[in-house]
């Protein structure tokens, strides 16, 4: 277990220490929080743009962040020699592979927490903003709600706090930035709960909580691609691995590669939440179960490939 934790921790740190990770966290959170600003684009429902922005951010930015981290954690370590240095210890190769992927999934979970909290807050703020615009006298181009302001402040505040920590206590900037930006999101969501707009009781009951399980289902689908990218990176260089993963994601929108890669549409449950729709729990459960099986498949495949891989 100590070996597993040491390897997983290094993979998580490596994933968050990349400058690209901090940029992806910042861009993804800014995209989600700024969605309510464009309240004229409601797609027939207040908050829908913000909600779909959150899901898209997880799928696009999250998948780029996590698959790049998986390629670095496996392929990068093999190329740089750190994998050989680790595997010269009493570390089974299968354990090395699974622990590295687990570390990357942990960093992706941090991304999920940030996006989930930001999406709930942005969807709620968007709905409140649209309602305020309806009752406002005269044309309104922007509606700034306290939730929206808090979300943007939390994101920028996390970035600035990371810079200060780096300046004064030499904390790793990118790791601190990712952690602080991500952890600030659930914090401001909690702060936003008692904040009410005039005429709108902002309570926990009104928050669109069903977004969170739907995002978790999508994240499970993404985890299959993380394990897939890791398995490919055992044998391939980063560029062909990235190309194959990108191709597989695109293909998975059109038709599933049965028993190997998931059909993304089955994990994309955001449409079911439209117009106050309920999450189809049975369908969500099936998708999660399928994702667990496919992740296990790619973990076994990656471990077997690494068993036979020479480390010159």
């Amino acid at each position, binding site marked *: 277990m*100590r*070996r597993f*934790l*040491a*390897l997983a*921790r*290094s993979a998580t*740190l*490596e994933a968050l*220490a990349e400058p690209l990770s901090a940029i992806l966290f910042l861009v993804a959170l800014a995209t989600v929080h700024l969605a309510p600003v464009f309240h004229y684009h409601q797609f027939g429902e207040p908050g829908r743009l913000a909600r779909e922005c959150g899901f898209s951010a997880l799928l696009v930015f999250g998948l780029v962040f996590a698959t790049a981290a998986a390629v670095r954690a496996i392929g990068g370590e093999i190329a*740089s*020699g*750190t994998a*050989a*240095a*680790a*595997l*010269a*210890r*009493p*570390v*089974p190769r299968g354990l090395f592979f699974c622990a590295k992927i687990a570390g990357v999934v942990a960093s992706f979970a941090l991304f999920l927490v940030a996006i989930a909290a930001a999406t709930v807050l942005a969807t709620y703020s968007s709905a409140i903003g649209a309602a305020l615009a309806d009752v406002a006298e005269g044309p309104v181009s922007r509606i700034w709600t306290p939730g929206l302001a808090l979300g943007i402040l939390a994101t920028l505040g996390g970035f600035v706090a990371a810079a200060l920590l780096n300046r004064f206590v*030499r904390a*790793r900037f990118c*790791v601190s930035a990712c952690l602080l930006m991500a952890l600030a999101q659930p914090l401001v969501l909690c702060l936003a709960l008692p904040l009410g707009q005039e005429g709108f009781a902002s309570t926990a009951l009104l928050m669109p909580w069903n977004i969170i399980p739907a995002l978790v289902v999508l994240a499970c689908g993404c985890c299959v691609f993380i394990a897939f990218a890791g398995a490919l990176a055992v044998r391939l260089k980063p560029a062909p691995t990235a190309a194959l993963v990108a191709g597989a994601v695109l293909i998975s929108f059109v038709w599933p590669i049965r028993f190997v890669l998931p059909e993304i549409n089955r994990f994309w449950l955001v449409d079911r939440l439209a117009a106050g729709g309920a999450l189809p729990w049975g369908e969500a459960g099936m998708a999660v179960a399928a994702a667990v099986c496919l992740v296990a498949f790619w973990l076994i495949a990656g471990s077997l490939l690494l068993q036979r891989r*020479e*480390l*010159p």
Partner: protein
Amino acid sequence: MSVEAGAQAPVIEIRGLRKTFRDFWFRPVAEAVNGIDLTVERGDVFGLLGPNGSGKSTTIKMVLGLLAPTAGSVKLFGLSPRARAARARLGYLPELSYLHPFLTARETVMYYAGLSNLDRKTAKARTAELLEQVGLAENANRPVGGFSKGMARRVAFASALVSHPELLILDEPTSGLDPIGTREVKELIGRLAADGLTILVTSHQLFDMQDVCSRVAILSHGKVVGSGRVADIVAAAADKRHALEDYFVARLGAGQEGAK
């Protein structure tokens, strides 16, 4: 073979070892190791010497189980190099100090302590002791990505020693070090050998190896072209100061004649 049985076996036993690298189409590209026989006994400081491309690092990687031999066998404490029980008893310093640049010196040594399954309390104590020993206690909390080559080498040395290994494998330990760093490494090898550690070391620095090795083998084109006890080589030499260098040049010359 059990670990107890392995305790009686030579630390490293290599028989008829061959390694042929192949390309994508499985065509042979290079014969890196071509039928090596070696035995490293307990307490030896064994020098594996040879010019660039002679097969030293490839041999070491087969001893570590990182490369699979094309033919022949390697036994580590009487076990397969892939056996965890065998690898739990060794420390490895690679030719280049492969370190995670984002980890601090302390985290790096703690990481390798974790990989060696040391509990947290022991790992912390051992890390502090080793960083002190290699002169990096004051830089323990700096990321190793910002270290000089010599400092990174010391971190790698501390990482290799963290699990109290019985066998230490050093691939070019003085590579990239200045004269003071080289002397410190030689002194460290001497201290570890005096403590009874078995050491397998590769190097180009013959003058340095003469001081630290008890036995040597000279490799050329993947073959052992000469081997013996350093004390015997020095005793037989006219120029005692350059005895190993003269022996090395003579054996390489003989090896190349043989190859022709």
